[in-house]
């Protein structure tokens, strides 16, 4: 006899409407087939890959630390690029964040500020780097300008969000005392956003150090340039050594920045 209730409990499906549920699954499957089908895979070249992978990895082991001078030079340059870009980027992001905070800026200024942030955030640092390399030539200067833009995109956005959350009472109190715009900023706004600003700066330094390893690949200086050269000359053992140094440096800087931020917040 068939009972009106099922004998065993089963989990209710995530999407109650069966048409929508199976429709979505079907849509995902169709999309996957279509996307993989239309992408231009070069299968002949890909099937060569297994042999090449063997050659590359046998060329990469053991990693060669024979040119520590070159590596140290590239790494210090990356560090310098990251420091300067962070300092300049954080300074510039303060006025931009003030422009992009809805509670402080009038509408036209707000739109301009948000526009700058959206542009700075949307382009990957590598694209920005290519444009700066074309404009100011190869070398660390292009890297610094790139990471400055990158820092503005992140720091100004987060800072603007923090400014929008400030306690408005302090601003009113300072204004009631007859303070000018600048004094209001210095005495009522900045003290409230300072802890966040310091945390963001340290995070951004860490983040810039990471990114500076990458922008070098397109000619913007630092250890990325050393890495790209090693790859181009098929020096896979040196390239592996550089990657290991980058990974080590990133782990250290992540740990240090995490520690400092934990103590501040």
């Amino acid at each position, binding site marked *: 006899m068939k009972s009106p209730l099922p004998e065993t409990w089963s*989990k209710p499906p*995530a999407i109650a409407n069966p048409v929508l549920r199976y429709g979505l699954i079907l849509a995902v499957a169709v*999309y*996957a087939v279509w*996307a*993989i089908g*239309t*992408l*231009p*895979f*070069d299968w002949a*070249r*890909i099937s*060569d*890959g297994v042999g*090449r*992978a063997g050659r*590359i990895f046998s060329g990469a082991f053991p990693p060669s630390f024979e040119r520590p001078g070159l590596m140290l030079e590239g790494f*210090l*340059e990356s*560090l*310098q*690029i990251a*420091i*300067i870009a962070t*300092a300049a980027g954080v300074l510039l992001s303060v006025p931009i964040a003030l422009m992009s905070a809805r509670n402080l800026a009038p509408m036209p200024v707000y739109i301009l500020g948000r526009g700058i942030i*959206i*542009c700075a*955030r*949307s*382009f*990957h640092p*590598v*694209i920005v780097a*290519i*444009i700066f390399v*074309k*404009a*100011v*030539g190869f*070398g*660390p*200067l292009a890297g*610094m*300008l790139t990471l400055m833009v990158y820092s503005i995109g992140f720091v100004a956005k987060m800072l603007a969000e923090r400014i929008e959350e400030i306690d408005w009472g302090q601003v009113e109190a300072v204004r009631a005392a007859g303070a000018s715009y600048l004094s209001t900023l210095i005495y009522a706004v900045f003290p409230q956003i300072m802890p966040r600003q310091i945390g963001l700066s340290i995070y951004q330094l860490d983040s810039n150090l*990471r*990114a500076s*390893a*990458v922008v070098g*690949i*397109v000619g913007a*200086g630092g250890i990325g340039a050393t*890495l*790209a050269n090693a*790859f181009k000359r098929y020096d896979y053992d040196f390239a592996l050594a550089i*990657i290991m140094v*980058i*990974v080590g440096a*990133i*782990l250290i800087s992540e740990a240090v920045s995490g520690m400092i931020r934990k103590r501040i917040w």
Partner: protein
Amino acid sequence: MVSLDTRPEDWVRFTPRQRLTRFAIYAFVLISIAWAMSNVEINWPWLLDAPQQMGDLFGRMVPPDASNLGTILRVLVETVNIATIATGAGVILSLPVAYIAAQNTTPNQATLWLGRFILVTSRSVNTIIWALLFVAIFGPGVLAGILAITFRSLGFLGKLMGEAIEEIDRRPVEALEATGASKGKVILYAIVPQVLPAFWAVSILRWDINIRESTVLGLVGAGGIGLVLQGAIDTFNWQEAATILLAILALVVIGEFISAWLRRQII
């Protein structure tokens, strides 16, 4: 002579000791900036020239040349497909890694460290560096790009999912274990429902990031719109480069809208 104790009669914001620490930190920051500025190779004439050069460059980009728009849109779709397929692959691969990298679900100490090792390696190597490696192995093309993004996403997704698994409520797991449920059933009925919201949030976030990352893969030969951008820049076709940059901007902004919408729908 400043004494190191606070004097209660006149109020100051910081004690002298705090002030000393602050000055030491300021000095350290200034010295590191000065060190960086003095050592780095800045070609000052180039820097002073930069605004003019940039103006010149943007001048050459106007008006954007849309004659190649068909090709640009086609590779734009290709870029989105690379990002989406790679996110899907990264999500699937990251789940077992997250499972063994979470302290409360990992079978034993060795698998815990294996999981952590995979996550750290994947996360510390940037997408572009992964792409360089895969281009060297599989040749220029979309496969190298997909693999690069998959390998980089794996660490990001695995780390966040692992943290979500570590934060779950133990009691449903214990309740199911007490009924004699199998390992698979415990995962399916006690762990999965708890981490599902985090899973969707993290996957959507990574898709958004991957859209951005996939626009630059082409610059190292790994497919997508970057290849067309590189071509336009190398031939000094700045007007077409401007169209491509606008297309990338539009793509990223649309991607951000879609991911915000998806997040609202699901969470």
